[in-house]
């Protein structure tokens, strides 16, 4: 018998701190698989953000820098500009990217920085106990919206992929989900494309990944995967919003 599936080399052999069933873990593994397949582990630098993935540097075997909340795209810009031969990516939650870090992500994308952004949208502030994020859905109950998000006061949930896709500096932009096997395979392909546009010097690449937070959604991990299809996908449609013609298919 041959091994047909095992831990990717770029993923550390440790127990993560993530809650049971949290799909941050699947996304980490997909990034590790892509790093392995592209053979870039030794020249990749990750920029960790603030949120539940703040400890991502313990889980992927590349080099890392920790950034202040929301500032990962600015820190990554500095790293990439001073070390242009490295592959630089950020790993950011929706609170990090779409709230406190809105300015940084918009301007990095607009400048067409050669960066890859892994944007994990779980529609909530996971780490701090489940407060409303800019991405929280209308009517969604969170610690700070006990009656559900009221869009007349809090505004409508922000579709970052669609917004950023309007910027000419962006080369690749997709929204994927990791709530079932077929979507997980598509998510991996998108992550790979977002790394390839950087490697091919085409521009800024980002993948928005719909992810679960079973703990703060108050759902069993399996039910949380179903909630992605029921509640998130109708508002956050999956697909590629920007694709460069030049990117080579694998």
């Amino acid at each position, binding site marked *: 018998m041959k091994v047909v599936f095992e831990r990717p080399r770029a993923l550390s052999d440790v*127990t993560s701190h993530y809650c049971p069933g949290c799909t941050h*873990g699947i996304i980490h593994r997909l990034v590790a698989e892509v790093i392995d397949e592209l053979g870039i582990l030794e020249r990749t630098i990750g920029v960790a953000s603030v949120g539940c993935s703040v400890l991502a540097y313990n889980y992927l075997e590349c080099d890392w820098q920790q950034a202040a909340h929301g500032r990962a795209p600015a820190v990554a810009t500095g790293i990439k500009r001073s070390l242009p031969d490295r592959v630089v990516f950020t790993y950011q939650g929706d609170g990090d990217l779409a709230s406190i870090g809105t300015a940084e992500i918009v301007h990095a994308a607009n400048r067409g920085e050669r960066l890859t952004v892994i944007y994990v949208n779980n529609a909530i502030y996971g780490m701090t106990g489940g407060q409303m994020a800019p991405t929280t859905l209308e009517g969604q109950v969170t610690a700070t919206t006990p009656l559900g998000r009221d869009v007349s006061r809090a505004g409508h949930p922000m579709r970052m992929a669609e917004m950023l896709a309007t910027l000419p500096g962006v080369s690749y932009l997709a929204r994927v989900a990791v709530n079932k096997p077929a979507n997980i395979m598509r998510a991996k392909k998108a992550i790979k494309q977002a790394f390839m546009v950087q490697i091919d010097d085409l521009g800024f690449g980002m993948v928005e990944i719909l992810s679960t937070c079973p703990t703060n959604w108050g759902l069993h991990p*399996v039910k949380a995967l179903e909630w992605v299809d029921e509640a998130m996908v109708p508002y956050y449609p999956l697909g590629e919003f920007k694709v460069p013609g030049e990117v080579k298919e694998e």
Partner: protein
Amino acid sequence: MARVEFNVDRCKGCELCTAFCPQKIIKLAEGINKMGYHPAAVEEMDKCTGCAICARVCPDCVITVYK
């Protein structure tokens, strides 16, 4: 012939693998692991086809698949 192997003490008992196994052969064990969770386990290993779907949905990279 195929086989899955669980890194039992890494399993958090989230049941994503049990939900997606097309053969429905993964269940949570009666006993608990070092972390206090009921870990995933397979009783009828002869029914495993080695599709690796369980491993692909596992958030904790608990599963190695042989075929």
